[in-house]
């Protein structure tokens, strides 16, 4: 071992430390309050077979009771459903136009009727222009 290594080792030994009683107590208390993680879980205590049957049957009975209660509740809560009423607003808001219409009396071929109608419109236009002074 060389001089430096010897000196380092000697100097490390000159660092004088002791674990105090208080620290010792603290560490011991901390360790006793812990359990290592990953430790095997404690074995589950075996119960008699009758216990398993009794608990299973109790569970099934409880489930049936709950289902029955829910069903009876839902029947009581049910009320006859009514068809929604149509709101009159839509009818009221639509303006009613009084169309004054006459059914056309077709006495000649369709082409002739169209020409007559156009002539009537022209006459009506002419009359309106005369009335308003154009």
């Amino acid at each position, binding site marked *: 071992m060389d*001089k*430096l*290594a010897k*000196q*380092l*080792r000697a*100097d*490390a030994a*000159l*660092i*004088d*430390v*002791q*674990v*105090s009683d208080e*620290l010792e107590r*603290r*560490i*011991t208390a*901390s*360790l*006793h309050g*812990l*359990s*290592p*993680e*990953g*430790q095997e879980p404690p074995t589950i205590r075996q119960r008699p077979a009758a216990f398993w049957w009794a608990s299973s049957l109790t569970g099934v009975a409880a489930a049936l009771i709950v289902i029955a209660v829910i069903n009876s509740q839902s029947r009581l809560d049910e009320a006859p459903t009514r068809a929604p009423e149509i709101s009159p607003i839509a009818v009221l808001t639509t303006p009613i136009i009084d169309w004054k219409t006459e059914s056309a009396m077709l006495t000649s071929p369709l082409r002739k009727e169209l020409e007559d109608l156009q002539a009537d419109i022209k006459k009506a236009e002419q009359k309106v222009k005369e009335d308003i002074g154009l």
Partner: protein
Amino acid sequence: MIDEQQLIDAAKAGSAEAFADLVKRYRVRLLRFLLTRCASFADAEDALQDTLIAAYRYLHSYDSRWRFSTWLYRIAIRNAQKIRSENIVELGDLSDEESDPLLQCIVASESENLWVSARRVLNDDVFAATWLRYAEDMSINDISKALDRSASWTKVNLLRARKALGSELNRQSSGSEAYG
């Protein structure tokens, strides 16, 4: 005397007493190391307590291919770093015996303790590597594992530390000769 592996097995099974016996041989060594890494004696004690609690809690993850001491030191180094990161006092600020817990625990000698010089001239990881090598006689491989560094990093930095501390030792020797 009960074998270390037997104590580890018993502690893994949940025996706090076996764990206490197991770490009894390492407590003082760990505390001495932690004292060089912490800003106060109370911090070093807290770091030791945290280290032992963490070791007990995670003992199931201990791989027996490692030396137990290597594994413990790895936890201790992390705890020291954690406690120092929470503390506002830097080790470099500790200059007198009143504030420096390491100086308080050093038995009086003619020259400055080389570990005090080492703490001044080496960074954290290099100091830890040097400590594990020369105060704990650990192999390069174990030091690499404890510090989570490569073997080549450990070799190179131990060489640098030797060079720096060799200069310190020469300076001390020449100083004492000059005064002598």
